């Protein structure tokens, strides 16, 4: 497949870098100001070197990407809430041109799911978005294999930053502020960790899951979301007295989405440690399935994007 990649951050760059290993060709890569476009395939290594050096990716503008011949648009621009722009318009333009779209950007799938599906219905192209939920962990493809109707609920830990903070607080008896600072020093938490610790990032992922289970109907506004900022070390100590710990757990069912700090047994599968993520898929006929792994990171997320590309039918 010929890939056009929008977004040259951790994810977009890794998709470009790994595409060759998956036998795909990159015909365009754009960031917010420039683009490298070549119908015969861009020289990925050179383009990435220019990006690393702070130079424009190429001579094109981001808009030129849409004029080139590509099979799959990879949407890896920043996740935004509400209208989910500019991601939504990018997806719309590709579908209207009868191209496939693979998203890493959570915004359009969480906030405007029904509109995306309507655009897809009128297009020869289709959309996939494995990378939006759980990074490298195959979550949506597992649900697809079980069929969404056979899945009754999905629960789990889908934010590595919050999980890292709670794990450290429990292990070291330290308070939230202290551990957050440490996580920022380690590069585990971003300079502005708001969406990670207030539950928004996890909620977007569980909203996407609820949309998949119920075939739409949910956006962030429908989710009940609580973060971990108000959890003191003493709450984790008390939980530990009783063989339990606290994790930021999300739940998605056809009835709704809820994300918040919850008590779980210390030895429970969902009590993963550090930045690890886990999902539990509760099925009608086969009990619960668990998969855990790395929920974020450039190469990790790129593998999910490229697996999606591999699942697309030829145009």
């Amino acid at each position, binding site marked *: 497949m010929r890939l056009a990649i929008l977004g040259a951050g951790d994810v977009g760059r890794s998709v470009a870098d790994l595409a060759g290993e998956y036998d795909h060709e990159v015909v365009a890569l754009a960031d917010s100001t420039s683009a490298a476009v070549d119908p015969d395939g861009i020289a990925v290594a050179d383009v990435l070197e220019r990006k690393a050096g702070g130079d424009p990716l190429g001579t094109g503008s981001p808009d030129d990407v849409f004029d080139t011949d590509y099979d799959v648009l990879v949407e890896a621009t920043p996740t935004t809430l509400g209208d989910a722009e500019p991601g939504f318009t990018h997806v719309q333009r590709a579908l209207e041109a009868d191209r496939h779209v693979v998203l890493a950007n959570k915004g359009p799938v969480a906030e405007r799911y029904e509109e995306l599906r309507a655009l897809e219905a009128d297009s020869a192209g289709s959309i996939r978005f494995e990378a939006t939920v759980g990074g490298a962990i195959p979550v949506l493809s597992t649900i697809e294999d079980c069929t969404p109707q056979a899945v*009754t*609920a999905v*629960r789990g830990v889908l934010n590595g930053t919050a999980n890292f903070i709670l794990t450290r607080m429990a292990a070291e008896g330290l308070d939230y502020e202290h551990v957050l600072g440490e996580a920022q020093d380690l590069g585990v938490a971003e300079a502005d960790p708001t969406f990670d610790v207030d539950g928004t990032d996890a909620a977007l992922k569980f909203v996407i899951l609820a949309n998949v289970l119920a075939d739409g109907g949910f956006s962030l506004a429908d989710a009940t979301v*609580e973060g971990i900022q*108000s*959890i*003191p*070390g*003493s*709450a984790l*100590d*008390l*939980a530990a*007295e*009783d*063989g*339990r710990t*606290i994790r930021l*757990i999300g*739940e998605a*069912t*056809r*009835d*709704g989405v*809820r994300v*918040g*700090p*919850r*008590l*779980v*047994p210390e*030895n*429970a*599968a*969902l*009590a993963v440690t550090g930045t690890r993520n886990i999902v*539990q898929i*509760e*099925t*009608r*006929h086969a*009990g*619960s399935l668990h998969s855990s792994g790395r929920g974020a990171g450039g190469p990790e997320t790129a593998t999910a994007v490229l697996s999606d590309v591999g699942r697309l039918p030829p145009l």
Partner: protein
Amino acid sequence: MGNAPESGDEDDPDAETDGGLRAYTVRLELVDEPGELLRALAPIADNGGNLLSIHHERGNITPRGHIPVEVDFECPPDRFDDVVEGLRDAGVNVIQAGAEHYGEAVNVVLVGNLVETDLSNTLSRIEDEADAVVQDLSLAAPEGTDGISSARARLAIDSGRSGDVLAAIRSIGTDKELTVVEPLLGGEA
């Protein structure tokens, strides 16, 4: 959004839900030998159980010269038989199993200005409005009584009511501006 079986998908009443943890009591008879208690308890954790408490009635030797021990633990309901079988396989004399003390137990952690917001009033509201019995309470107030503190309460409730009970506690929490950390009831956590 609890996961009591009755809140399952209406299309399929048989939809499998794994249920939460349940509290169980088993009565064991142990030989009075060092290490015997530890050995006897291993199958509980090995089969996914969480030990809650042990009543070791040392002074109360059975006619056969054994010591009766009452063990409270919790586990997912579908693991209970495995626990009992595990105990028996380990050569432990299980006198009585499955006689539940109470329907169900749930733990909650409350966080906030617990003292200032009158903890004993909070607890009695939980007992009244959520129809639960507070069995056990621990309080941690590292900042002193006028700062943020945490309390863990174990509540005995009627079977199958955990969803309602937690909803009631949530609304008391909202009222008093306390953070309520609820247990995750669904699935095999």
